[in-house]
């Protein structure tokens, strides 16, 4: 508490008064109408005095938990407490009505590519990120990481002040030093200065670097992005003479083959791809068709989980498979076929491809070799897919680059570079282990670091400048298809952070350039109206790159011969899906968000296949020592069905101890084994088992359905034979109840979840957490089974353990009409409403936990300890992220999914004021809104033809555990897959009920 004790009380434009429910979505408007007014700035200070303070880096855990989930609003004693202070504006900014949220369009960066977002702001306080329907990369959806942006914005451990030699200094001093530097540069033409940037698609940055290079001809610019892959660039450069970026159209693809490409989970266009992919797999009646997905992958991914046919092979073997398939496609497959996959598999696949013709699509994995890309593109070309399902565009992320990190180090050691500005990346941590960046960098005369956190590189730097968060930032960014969005701030920089354009401007001699002006300059061609429209819509119209025509050369070259050492293990590197290269490691939401397949939280593990584990006598959690190229790490083992044998998957992003949240997490640092020559996979990994074991925290301990009809699934053929397959071989649903039916004569809210569409990406879970002020509990509590997510995605394995079906099932509260939980509550804390919601009244709950005991779906969550701080004065800055429309729950209180009741009520009040019915689709739950594949439908069951009513009319609609006659309002559409009948032995070719 000492940490927070010194924070001033919250005078704040009286959160209590302003906290109340919002009425409705305004047309998004640009923030500049508001953001730059002095009032606004003062207002922010009023609202978050805490943020002005400086927090020490060492926090004790309880404080930390409070910081992680501190709250604006207390469910409790204020009832009888004395009057609280309330504070009005001095000058009320127009268009701010206290109590009504505003929505602003912007774009968030994902590995340098933009994804459109609409951010909800309460009195200048960004609280929730939604997708921007007008943005091609979002289409209204978000991913888990975008949801967490608001939390990292308020992270009390963000860098708060410029540091010179580690000592707090003023930005003015920095400018002075820069002025000196610039003077020198002007003379020397930039001699000796290098910029190190990370992957970015910002036209402004590009333009600025361009002009800098004109100004300083000898200026060198390098790029280091640990997650960027160069294979595609190399391949296209070789094939087409210049680097091009492929974009895919899964909505046009009948047959998709993926060579180790996780296009649903990793690619910059993943949200759009997921939407297109799901659209082709939407089956409601037997006449509907489906696309078919073949995946050959080297480690289980959600794309693999969505596949109709999935082959798991060693990373190095993917190339071989691709070669074989291409050969088969050209009719020249010799007996030199590999297994896996089998000959028959390959032929069936190739036949499918041929039939699909130009509607086929072969997708190369970014992490695979350039040759795999060449093969894939060649196949697409042969099939005529190029221009239909596959387009090539100019790389949106093309920057005038002189080299990569290795080149920079080289330059430093040769002395051609003596001062460097590191703009964003954290090379000291994310560099390949065979590159001694520290040694190189310590040679520098001047090292300037610009970043959100005072990270490893910052500690080495002479100057560290805090970066503005993307929600505080003026910038612009391209989407995967080249579409440009203007990034506009939701809030003035809380900690005086600077934007990248500002820093580049400083080099150019503009010392107090205005953030907005710099971006506006790039778009000078655009008139004011156009500019405002671009800001309002979140996209610059017609800025998507046009496809370029390519001609596929006959000779695509030959595989680089590589001698794979048979008896050694191969290692596959993947970025942690949430922490990426570790940049998000200090975000408790992301740390505690279960990984889609392993369901691990607060740490990573070395993933091995069951067979390999058996061969090496390993078990979950057992520590193994992994060695490669003289470096070695200790890591706990995690056995994952579907992992190729003799392959160990290591994830990057953990093992980082800077930042107190990150320090809580377990896990190892994958970078330690990564080398320049083999960034994504390599062989000759040495594994020695230790007899110790380490804690690996997971939120799902049991993986099989125990023969219960939980996830009901069938093939498309089976569905056509029997559209009602979900009723097959399961106890018939009871039709009557001992109790009289209650009338629901107004709305009857219900939800339908399409299991065929769900790809298990966890965006809904993250969105739910952000919307409903769900606490994070930390690794120790999570290990005890105290995690709080209202919505969980169950992941089951079915079929053979080495090649299982991977099934996802989102499980929110079922809102049973005959709710078992309600009858047993002794204090009426959970009861039914007139529109059929199973309401949970936190302030009435006394915590008997009987409801949870009696909930067959186990969707209720309990505040075992005080996970969130209520005292506005002592709660940390992160309380600012809380949704003011949702009560923050106290210790000892049960909570659960409420169908986002605050959103329902908001819409109802709006409708009632306008004296009309609530329109269908007007109420959108947080999970539904975030879902990239639109797997979730919510609405009024009583309304004829409402979306949800139509979904529930589908023949394969079923309720979970319906034999218990709890009459759930949440139901599921059975999962339908579309495997190739010619390929035998694939589980799921018959209907399966667990």
């Amino acid at each position, binding site marked *: 508490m000492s940490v927070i004790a010194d924070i001033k009380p919250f005078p704040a434009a009286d959160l209590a008064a302003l906290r109340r429910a919002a009425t409705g979505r305004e047309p998004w408007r640009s923030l500049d109408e508001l953001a730059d007014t002095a009032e606004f700035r003062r207002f922010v200070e009023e609202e978050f005095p805490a943020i002005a303070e400086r927090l020490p880096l060492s926090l004790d855990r309880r404080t930390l938990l409070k910081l992680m989930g501190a709250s604006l609003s207390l469910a409790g004693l204020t009832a009888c407490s004395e009057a609280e202070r309330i504070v009005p504006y001095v000058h009320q900014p127009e268009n701010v*009505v206290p109590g009504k949220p505003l929505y602003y369009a912007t774009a968030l960066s994902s590995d340098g590519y933009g994804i459109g977002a609409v951010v909800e702001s309460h009195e200048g306080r960004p609280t929730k990120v939604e997708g921007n329907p007008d943005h091609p990369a979002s289409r209204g959806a978000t991913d888990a990481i975008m949801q967490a942006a608001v939390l990292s914005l308020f992270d009390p451990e963000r860098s708060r002040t410029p540091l010179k030699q580690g000592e707090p200094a003023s930005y003015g001093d920095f400018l002075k030093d820069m002025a000196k530097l610039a003077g020198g540069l002007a003379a020397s033409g930039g001699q000796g200065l290098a910029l190190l940037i990370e992957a970015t698609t910002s036209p402004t940055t590009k333009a600025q670097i361009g002009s800098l290079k004109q100004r300083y001809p000898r200026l060198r610019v390098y790029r280091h992005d640990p997650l960027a892959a160069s294979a595609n660039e190399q391949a296209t450069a070789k094939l087409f003479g210049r680097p091009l970026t492929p974009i895919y159209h899964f909505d046009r693809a009948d047959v998709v083959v993926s060579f180790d490409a996780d296009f649903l989970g990793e690619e910059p266009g993943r949200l759009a791809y997921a939407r297109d992919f799901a659209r082709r797999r939407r089956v409601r009646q037997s006449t509907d068709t489906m696309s078919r997905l073949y995946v050959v992958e080297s480690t289980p991914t959600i794309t693999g989980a969505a596949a109709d046919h999935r082959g798991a092979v060693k990373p190095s073997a993917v190339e071989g498979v691709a070669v074989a398939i291409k050969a088969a496609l050209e009719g020249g497959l010799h007996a030199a076929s590999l297994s896996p996959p089998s000959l028959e598999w390959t032929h069936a696949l190739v036949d499918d491809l041929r039939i699909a013709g130009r509607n086929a699509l072969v997708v190369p994995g970014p992490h695979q070799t350039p040759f795999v890309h060449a093969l894939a593109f060649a196949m697409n070309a042969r099939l005529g897919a190029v221009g239909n399902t596959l387009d090539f565009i100019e790389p949106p992320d093309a920057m005038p680059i002189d080299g990569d990190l290795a080149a920079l180090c080289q330059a430093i050691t040769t002395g051609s570079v003596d001062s460097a500005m590191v703009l964003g990346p954290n090379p000291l941590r994310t560099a390949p282990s065979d590159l001694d960046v520290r040694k190189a960098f310590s040679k520098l005369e001047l090292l300037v670091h610009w970043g959100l956190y005072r990270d490893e590189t910052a500690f080495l730097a002479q100057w560290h400048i805090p970066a503005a968060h993307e929600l505080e930032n003026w910038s612009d960014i391209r989407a995967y298809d080249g579409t440009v969005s203007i990034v506009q701030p939701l809030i003035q920089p809380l900690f005086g952070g600077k934007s990248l354009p500002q820093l580049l401007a400083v080099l150019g001699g503009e010392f107090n350039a205005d953030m907005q002006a710099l971006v506006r300059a790039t778009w000078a061609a655009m008139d004011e109206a156009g500019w405002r429209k671009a800001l309002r819509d979140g996209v610059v119209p017609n800025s998507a790159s046009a496809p370029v025509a390519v001609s596929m050369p006959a000779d695509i070259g030959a595989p680089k011969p590589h001698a794979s050492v048979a008896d050694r293990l191969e290692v596959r590197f993947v970025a942690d899906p949430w922490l990426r290269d570790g940049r998000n490691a200090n975000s408790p939401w992301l740390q505690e968000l279960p990984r889609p397949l392993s369901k691990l939280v607060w740490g990573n593990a070395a993933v091995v296949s069951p067979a390999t584990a058996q061969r090496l006598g390993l078990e979950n959690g057992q520590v193994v020592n992994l060695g490669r190229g003289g470096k070695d790490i200790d890591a706990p083992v995690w056995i994952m069905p579907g992992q190729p044998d003799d392959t160990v998957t290591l994830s990057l992003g953990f093992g980082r101890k800077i930042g107190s949240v990150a320090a809580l997490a377990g896990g190892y640092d994958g970078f330690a084994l990564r080398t320049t020559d083999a960034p994504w996979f390599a062989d000759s990994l040495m594994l020695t088992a230790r007899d110790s074991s380490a804690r690996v925290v997971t939120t799902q301990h049991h993986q099989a359905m125990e023969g219960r009809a939980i996830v009901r699934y069938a093939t498309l053929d089976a569905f056509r034979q029997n559209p009602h397959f979900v009723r097959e071989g399961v106890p018939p649903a009871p039709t009557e109840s001992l109790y009289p039916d209650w009338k629901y004569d107004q709305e009857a809210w219900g939800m339908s979840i399409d299991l065929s569409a769900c790809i298990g990406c966890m965006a809904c879970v993250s969105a739910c957490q952000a919307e409903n002020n769900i606490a994070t509990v930390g690794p120790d509590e999570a290990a005890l089974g105290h995690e709080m997510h209202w919505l969980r995605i169950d992941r089951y394995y079915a079929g053979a353990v080495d090649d299982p079906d991977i099934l996802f099932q989102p499980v929110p509260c079922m809102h049973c009409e005959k709710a078992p939980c309600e009858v047993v509550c002794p204090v009426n804390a959970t009861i039914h409403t007139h529109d059929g919601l199973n309401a949970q009244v936190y302030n009435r709950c006394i915590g008997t936990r009987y409801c949870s005991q009696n909930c067959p779906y186990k969707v209720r969550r309990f505040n075992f300890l005080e996970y969130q701080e209520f005292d506005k004065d002592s709660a940390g800055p992160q309380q600012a992220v809380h949704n003011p429309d949702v009560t923050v729950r106290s210790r000892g209180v049960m909570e659960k999914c409420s169908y986002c009741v605050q959103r329902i009520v908001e819409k109802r009040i709006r409708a009632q*004021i306008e004296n009309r019915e609530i329109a269908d689709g007007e109420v959108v739950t947080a999970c539904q809104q975030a879902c990239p594949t639109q797997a979730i439908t919510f609405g009024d069951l009583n309304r004829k033809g409402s979306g949800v009513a139509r979904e529930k009319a589908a023949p394969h609609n079923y309720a979970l555990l319906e034999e218990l006659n709890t009459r759930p309002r949440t139901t599921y559409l059975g999962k339908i897959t579309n495997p190739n009948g010619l390929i035998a032995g694939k589980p799921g070719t018959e209907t399966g009920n667990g």
Partner: protein
Amino acid sequence: MQIGEGMPQVFSSNANGIARFVLWGLCFFAIFVAIGGTALLRSGFITGVGRPVAQAVPFSHKHHVGDIGLDCRYCHNGVETSASAGLPPTEVCMTCHSQIFTNADMLAPVRASLASGQPLQWQRVNSVPDFVYFNHSIHIAKGVACETCHGDVDDMPLMHRAHSLSMEWCLGCHRDPGPNLRPPQDVFLLHWKPPQDIEEVRGSLISILDIHPETMTDCYVCHR
């Protein structure tokens, strides 16, 4: 020992009376506590009804509303559109007070606020717990008048609570809104005199405004 050695008479002759007194006393005390407690919960001591709250600036609704006759919305302009009625920004105070009472001492804080940009700090009078979500706009829209909850503010030199704002009190109206309804155009009037045919009016309001009392006691109407 021998019979009779014991002296069995332990208590004096008035012990019986005392005993009876004590027993009855306890019964009455219990009853008193029960009734008293129930009453106390609803009394001004707990609810703060009728207790004026001191303010940094002794703003008088009596003067501004009663004497001058300002409309509620002049200062509380969010009341029709937003959950919160809203408080007047300092500049709103200054629209008049830059002309009149320009250097009255009692207005010093207001001027200071405008000068420094530091907001005024008021003490909240009508407050509900943070787990209660009250929305002004819907009440206004459905013909529940300001004075229904806030009382005759034009008689309040310093603001005080007119009603307990307890759940009991809220439910009183949510179960049977009729008696508290009036034509929406009249909601901002104080000391409103209901017309003769008020009963029919209310009856029709319920249907015209599409009010469903049976849904108004759902938990989530106030708790989310």
